[in-house]
């Protein structure tokens, strides 16, 4: 069972986000990046499947902010192979990102591709589905359970209200993982440091045609924060009293 996990670094949303001078993109100067949270789940599910069935896990990422760190972290968790795809700038353009990843993945040997269900920074649709289409594979998004038997996977897809659909899919396929069956494992920094010395990142250049999202970004702006809320101020004690009063007025 050879599994490919595409991962992406995204801005840490705990940070304050600012628009840059172009007015169309994030100001990255002070941004902290972290792995997209659902990619951690995709990687976890891949590692669990490998533990069950044997095989390899290959992690692949487009070059970008702090990507090496994310790849080495994946190695420390148990990924066998790390690939960095260079030569493409696909910010806010998943069509291009998917095409770039597809250009590298198409020549690889794999049974399954597990991505995160979504990242916080795309404008033109879900990468797993685009990737599947460019590779000519079936796809299922919003996946919370994967079992593999031979070359068929049984997959659970979450709808609203906690309703789950169960599907069978012929492999290879692309699955967008919402949640792994276990909480993603944690690796201590020391282990990541060790991986940085022992693991190797293979760099491959992308081969992208003139695909693009064809969207014209006109401006990026912050929503009016706090537009709705009246902020309660004063001492914590006063605020607590006010909250109790508000609640009591409703019930």
């Amino acid at each position, binding site marked *: 069972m050879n599994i490919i996990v595409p991962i992406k670094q995204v801005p840490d949303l705990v940070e304050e986000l600012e628009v840059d001078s172009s007015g169309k993109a994030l100001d990255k100067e002070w941004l902290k990046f972290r792995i997209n949270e659902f990619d951690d789940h995709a990687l976890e599910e891949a590692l669990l499947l490998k533990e069950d069935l044997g095989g390899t896990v290959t992690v692949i990422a487009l070059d970008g902010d702090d990507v090496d760190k994310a790849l080495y972290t994946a190695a420390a968790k148990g990924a066998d192979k790390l690939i960095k795809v260079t030569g493409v700038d696909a910010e806010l353009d998943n069509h291009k990102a998917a095409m770039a990843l597809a250009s590298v993945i198409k020549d690889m040997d794999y049974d399954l591709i597990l991505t995160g269900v979504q990242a916080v920074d795309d404008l033109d649709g879900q990468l797993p*589905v685009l990737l599947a289409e460019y590779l000519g594979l079936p796809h299922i998004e919003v996946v919370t359970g994967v079992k593999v038997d031979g070359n068929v996977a049984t997959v659970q897809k*979450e709808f609203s209200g906690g309703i789950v659909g169960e599907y069978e899919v012929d492999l290879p396929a692309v699955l967008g993982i919402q949640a792994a069956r276990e909480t993603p494992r944690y690796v201590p920094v020391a282990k990541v440091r060790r991986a940085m010395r022992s693991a190797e990142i293979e760099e491959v250049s992308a081969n992208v045609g003139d695909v693009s999202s064809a969207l014209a970004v006109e401006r990026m702006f912050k929503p009016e*924060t706090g537009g709705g809320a009246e902020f309660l101020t004063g001492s914590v004690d006063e605020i607590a009293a006010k909250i109790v009063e508000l609640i009591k007025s409703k019930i």
Partner: protein
Amino acid sequence: MKKVLVIAEHLNGQIQDITYELLGKAKELAQGGEVAVLLMGKDMQDAANSLGAADKVLYVDSDALAQFNPQTYFLTAAKAIEEYQPDIVLVGTTSQGMDLAGALSARLKMPLVAYVSALEDGKAVSQLYGGKMNVEVGLTTPYIAAVLAGAFPADKGKADGTPEVVEMAAPDLSGAKVRFKQLIEPEAGDVDITAQDVLVSVGRGIQSEDNIPMFEELAQKLGGALACSRPIVDNKWLPKSRQVGKSGLKVKPKVYLAFGISGAPEHIEGMKDSELIIAVNTDAKAPIFDYAHYGVTEDMFDLVPKLMEKL
């Protein structure tokens, strides 16, 4: 005058609210042109009766379409779009729509704008970064827009009457690589969070499972129940039946107290219609404050003990 096609969504035979939300918007975008709904299913002709706001229902009937299937629905929708040639295609940024929008965009080479929170002729606003940024994009037809659930009112897409139903043939779906097996209903929880007057809802900001009992106690003191955001369920700190949001439950209590929840669009979708929303979050820029009536930026661990004292 535009031709607008709405891709209908149904689950368990029920047309979902998003369909009406899209329909209302479609009528506005059509500017006197034609609004059609694409309905894919098995023996679902009668559902057209609830789509009176549309001019036309394009109906495709097949065993392979009885329940949502990422592949058969995609292939059928692609064929319908090629035949109908709409200027604008509207689909939900929902679990179903997330499987369709991108695939249609790539296959039909139509640009796609997703996470749409506002849409008018030639322009869309898309909500990114967990609701912390908006991006405005210019659009020229034909295009596909994947719209956030709850972005537009469902009322505008509801009207009496039965639109003309045009049957369309399904493409050959016999070799589908994705096969639907079954729908699994959620296990009933110990409490029904949709039936509470007061919900104390906790998010990742509570940091540890050890803090759950404190909020449980607070909920009890208020005569309500404890609810949560998705990461709390993914961490297995609370059961799925307590999850509020897109893939959890939609709640509308009299009071919704949110502790350490940032307010990602997927969470907002499930609670924004609560009567009184009070949010506690140390980040004054957290999107939850756009929807809360009252906001507090104190550390919740300072605030909660004081709240308990007063109850």
